[in-house]
């Protein structure tokens, strides 16, 4: 088991390396660099440019150096927590970002829990009651969840929450609590606001998961050992609980690989609409103003989140599934 874990962790390194190269390419792609256009803009507005500072930045990030060296500086800086410099905000990216990344992680995590909590019972019901009215109804609901663009769902839910429950528009808490220490009221306010993003982000992911879980469980239910168990007279509920359900549990863990990118994508656009203090709105702004170091580090962070998430799910699978533990490979 240990060699497998070691191998799995080591395999992450080339992946992250390749991702960082792609992100760096994206940073470099816009014509000219931000520093130049920034200086030009300041000069056009008649403001004085702090030559010394510009020089320092140029030097620090090697903006006049060849690309490979720029990459090394950028990637090397990232390794010890320096994500580059946001030219738009005029401060290091780490300061601009603040706890946005943490909040993104929390929102994603809660959404995964929500997705599991909803998808598990519904998926099992759909599979065991195949072609019943309940199955059709739930499948249709799931399809709706996939088909409605989540930004529209977010807008409408925000409006509904405001009209029916008096929740303030947007954000993760009432404006009066922003920057205040954590109190019971503040927690309540956060909870009041956070169910909308969780439902909106979770909607399409849940729908996809229900469909995959249903298909998986149906495959499992038609296998011969289930037929044998039934033929030997085991009550249907016990058959389900003893064997196929446990298989389905493994699927929940291994499905994180396809769920997580989905949730993070959904979280970004939903956050823009709901103006949540997560990475979404800031990534969009950074991209619009071509503040590429900021955008690049967000991208890098999101990809990193997914890679680590998949790693955790793989390791959890090793702990859960003896077949993998014994053969030392992922059995999917």
């Amino acid at each position, binding site marked *: 088991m240990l060699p497998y874990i070691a191998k799995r962790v080591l395999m992450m390194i*080339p*992946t992250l390396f*390749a*991702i960082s190269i*792609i992100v760096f390419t*994206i940073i470099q*792609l*816009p*014509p000219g660099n931000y520093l130049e256009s920034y200086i030009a803009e300041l000069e056009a507005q008649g403001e004085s440019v702090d030559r010394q500072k510009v020089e320092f930045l140029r030097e620090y990030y090697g903006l006049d150096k060849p690309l490979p060296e720029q990459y090394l500086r950028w990637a090397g800086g990232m390794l010890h927590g320096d994500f580059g410099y946001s030219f738009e905000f005029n401060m290091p990216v780490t300061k601009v970002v603040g706890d946005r990344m943490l909040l993104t992680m929390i929102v994603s995590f809660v959404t995964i829990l929500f997705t599991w909590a909803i998808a598990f019972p519904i998926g099992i019901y759909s599979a065991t009651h195949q072609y019943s009215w309940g199955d059709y109804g739930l499948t249709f609901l799931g*399809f*709706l969840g*996939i*088909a*409605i*663009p989540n*930004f*529209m769902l977010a*807008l*409408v839910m*925000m*409006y509904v929450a*405001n009209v029916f429950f008096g929740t303030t*528009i*947007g954000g993760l808490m009432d404006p009066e609590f922003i920057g205040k220490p954590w109190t019971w009221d503040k927690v309540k306010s956060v909870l009041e606001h956070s169910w909308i993003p969780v439902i909106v982000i979770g909607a399409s992911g849940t729908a996809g998961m229900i469909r995959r879980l249903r298909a998986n469980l149906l495959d499992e239910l038609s296998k011969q050992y289930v037929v044998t168990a039934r033929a030997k007279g085991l009550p249907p509920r016990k058959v389900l609980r003893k064997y196929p359900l446990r298989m389905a549990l493994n699927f929940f863990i291994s499905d994180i690989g396809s769920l997580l*990118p*989905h949730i*993070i*994508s*959904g979280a*970004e*656009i939903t956050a*823009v*609409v709901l103006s949540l203090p997560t990475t979404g709105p800031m*990534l*969009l702004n950074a*991209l*619009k103003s*071509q503040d590429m170091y900021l*955008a690049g580090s*967000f*991208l890098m962070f*999101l*990809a990193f989140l*997914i*890679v680590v998430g*998949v790693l955790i799910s793989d390791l959890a699978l090793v702990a859960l599934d003896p077949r993998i533990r014994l053969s030392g490979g992922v059995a999917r």
Partner: protein
Amino acid sequence: MNIQRDLLIPAEAKAEAATLEETQALDPGHFVSTEPFDPGSAAQLPPGQERFYLASQWTLMWWKFKRHRLAVASAIVLLAMYSSTLVTEFLAPYNLHTRHTDFIYAAPQRVHLFHDGRFVGPFVYPQTKSLDMTTLRRVYTPDRSDPRPLRFFCSGDAYRFWGLVPMSFHVVCPPRNGTLFLLGTDRLGRDMLSRILSGARISLTIGLLGIALSFTLGLVIGGLAGYYGGWVDMTVQRMIEIIRSFPELPLWMALSAILPVTWSPVLIYFGITGILALLDWTGLARAVRSKLLALREEDYTTAARLMGAKPSRIISRHLLPGFMSHLIASATLSIPGMILGETALSFLGIGLRPPITSWGVLLNEAQNVNVVALYPWLMLPVLPVIIVILAFNFFGDGLRDAADPYR
């Protein structure tokens, strides 16, 4: 068929059968049929079943698909929507760029048939505008005394058909000196219905173009990986893994944000399509690869190789047809993702740009919660999006079920 079989029977056997028939015919105790004997008759299928057993794979698929009613209905809906894009300009009551400055944010108008209990045919009541001084909102009230019948097959707003031929023909036109805003107007007083109809042209084609691109990419890359195996396969596998570990939407956002501002809207359209396809081929490539890996071990592949067929011929002639139907089904299922992707990008304002009009560009106007409260009809472009996504999903499901007709 019978003639062929007759030819296969050697002449002596025929002569023997003939003499046998003669001797038996002399014996009165037995009934002997005098009809010619066909030794292949046992293997021959009754005419009713021949149709089923000898049907081609595609015929079988069509039969199975036909039974999936929801899929057939979805196919019809999709067909209708796609064919509407051919004649958008005729169907739309207005030119999509015409501004009606007197009717900004006008609410949808209703079409009536009866006026004062008397049948008039389809007509609308003209709207009069007033300003609500407390909320500063424009309020449109229909004037119920003055029915204005619609005109059909008429000449209305001028436009260029497909951007080329100047014309002014419309299927429905607003009444003379009147307006016809069935789905309301936007902040510049442009008719929403006409805009949604022309948005279909962009939103629907971007899915098809994108899937064509990603299909080709997936087929070529997956085909190479699956057929050659070894280091080619390793490289492709790693590449797919890396692309998959990016969250789709943020990467789309980043790529479309770096499309040069100087590009023309048409170039941007192709750029966005390319970006959507660039991240989408991985699923197809995976499917192609795993199928190829399995199929290249089959005996018929070895036979083809021994007979000197080139890899390109083996792949395209012997291997691909075996799972093409599956590929088409899964490609259909990934079109909705592309349409949603374009909608999301344009909604955020980093996708397509006006004057190109797609559903996402239209939804860009409905970005804040005020719209939901005050002008909910600006959110209507989301309806065709939902319908198309649902239809593609059901259609693709039906295709996938039909793709394996022998099960």
